């Protein structure tokens, strides 16, 4: 509506300039690109077999043969880091994808399925939300036995209720918009209504939320592996690597520090990516634009 939009919102249409710090955006994209490359091609790029131990090569410092040295079983640290990108990042991605999909499904059913479905689903989510997430993850992981699969399932269970709540909110808001009502009046079927009009216009927020979650999940999964509940040795998962190498930090520091550093970089990069997406969607969030 021309008359009722504020000059500010109208202005943003003209002033949608590239982000204020384009180099940071580029850096974030570059880092994420590298991480993704490592996750896909890591095993091909690794100069040595990451699992072959050789007692004669234990805990060597960086050299021309082993750029980042070797660990306590004589395995090449660089190769293990490259190979480890996959279990670390992929498992985080799986957690986020599955919990987001599950959350969206629950939210759609709750929003469209009438009052009873809504009550039951949302109260269930409330109960799950009231349990402390990490404890839940620990409990499920213990029940299912230690291992990455257990940790992944546990995290999905801990995370999907929050996504469901968020998605239900945006879906309900989208349901009141003019074009959804217009489609209803026209006699559009429920499923078409949902798939064509409601979900595409509710996804933005949920997807941004998912991106922001990837970093956090990486951290939690690695944390679980670090304390021995997630990925188990000899897996090259970064958390597990950091855990075992921590004991030898004085002898070969890269083996202990680098997995942690990579985890940190991933967490920050995905967090910033989420911010970037959010700003793209709503330019007024940019600093100094008020």
């Amino acid at each position, binding site marked *: 509506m021309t*008359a009722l939009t504020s000059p500010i919102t109208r*202005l943003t249409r*003209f002033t*949608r*300039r590239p982000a204020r710090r384009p180099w940071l955006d580029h850096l974030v994209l570059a880092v994420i690109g590298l991480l993704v490359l490592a996750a896909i091609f890591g095993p091909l790029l690794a100069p040595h077999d990451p699992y072959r131990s050789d007692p004669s090569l234990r805990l060597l410092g960086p050299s021309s043969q082993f750029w980042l040295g070797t660990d306590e079983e004589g395995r090449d640290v660089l190769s293990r880091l490259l190979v480890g990108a996959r279990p670390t990042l992929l498992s985080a991605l799986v957690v986020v994808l599955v919990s987001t999909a599950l959350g969206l499904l629950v939210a759609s059913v709750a929003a469209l399925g009438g009052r009873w479905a809504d009550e039951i689903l949302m109260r269930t989510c409330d109960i799950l939300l009231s349990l402390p997430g990490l404890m839940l993850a620990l409990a499920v992981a213990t029940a299912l036995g230690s291992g990455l699969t257990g940790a992944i399932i546990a995290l999905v269970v801990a995370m999907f209720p929050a996504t469901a709540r968020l998605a239900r909110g945006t879906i309900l808001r989208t349901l009141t918009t003019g074009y959804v009502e217009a489609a209803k009046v026209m006699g559009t079927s429920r499923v078409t209504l949902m798939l064509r009009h409601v979900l595409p216009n509710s996804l933005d927020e949920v997807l941004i939320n998912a991106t922001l979650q990837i970093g956090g999940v990486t951290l939690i999964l690695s944390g679980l592996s670090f304390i021995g509940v997630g990925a188990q040795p000899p897996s090259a998962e970064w958390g597990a690597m950091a855990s075992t190498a921590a004991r030898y930090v004085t002898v070969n520091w890269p083996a202990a520090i680098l997995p942690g550093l990579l985890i940190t970089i991933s967490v920050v990069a995905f967090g910033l990516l989420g911010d970037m997406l959010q700003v793209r969607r709503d330019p007024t969030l940019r600093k100094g*634009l*008020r």
Partner: protein
Amino acid sequence: MSALLEIRDLTVDAGDVRLVDGMNLTLRRGEFLALVGESGSGKSVTARAITRLDRRTRLAGSIRMDGAELLTMPESELRAYRGARIGMVFQDPLSSFNPVQPIGRQIAEPLLIRGVGRAAARKKAEEMLGEMGITRPGERLTAYPHELSGGMRQRAAIAMALIAEPELLIADEPTTALDVRMQAKVLKLIREAATARHLAVLFITHDLGIVAGNADRVCVMYSGRPVEENDVRTLFRAPVHPYTRDLLAAVPRLGRGVGSLTAIPGVAATPANRPAGCAYHPRCAVAVQRCATQVPAFEARAACHLVEVPAR
């Protein structure tokens, strides 16, 4: 009468778009000037430039109030103008109020900032609400913004704008969001308050009809430029710019059929895709070749190549 506000050659840029392109305006004390235009005409941008509210825009030219240049004034000095010497009312009264504070406190705020005592400020706030035709103003002071109707909120916003006795009131589409009957009422209130205080009013609106009975002078804008300015009677009786004429013909009036309603062809030119020459020429029925290439200068009362400039 001396000029209170003088805008000369104002340009406002946002990014690489020129939102306002060469605006000139003079406002005297006690005068009610309506700035009329469609969306994208730059009327609100002009008004907001006066208090430099949008930090994203770049301003050039000159805006003088009582001789002092507002455009180059340090932010700290300008702050003393906002609220005190310049009162402002916006379209959406809900956005002018903090939702978690009672309105009385907020109406009195401009006085409290300037060190007026609590009791005195409260009393003045009550007076102002009363002047705005709100019954039992004392009780309303403790109400929260959402507890008031739209019309009442807008009147409270006007009370807030006028409480520090400004010399200039900028009202940006204050009646647009209101119901028809409330529109008339709010307009009358602004008009009366202005007369009583010898206040200069800059009234921004897209609605010519609302202007007719209330303004002293009217300035019509199109695509960031002023196209015609005159006292209200002359402008309505004998508009000279083709855009003003077309606009008047496009407003539905009581007692006339659809046949007499003449639509303007095409789409309003936005600042982002402003045509060369006179911005109105693609929609203008009487445009000649020159209109497409040369920007007409604003002479006497209108900016149009086809208007005869009377010799002085």
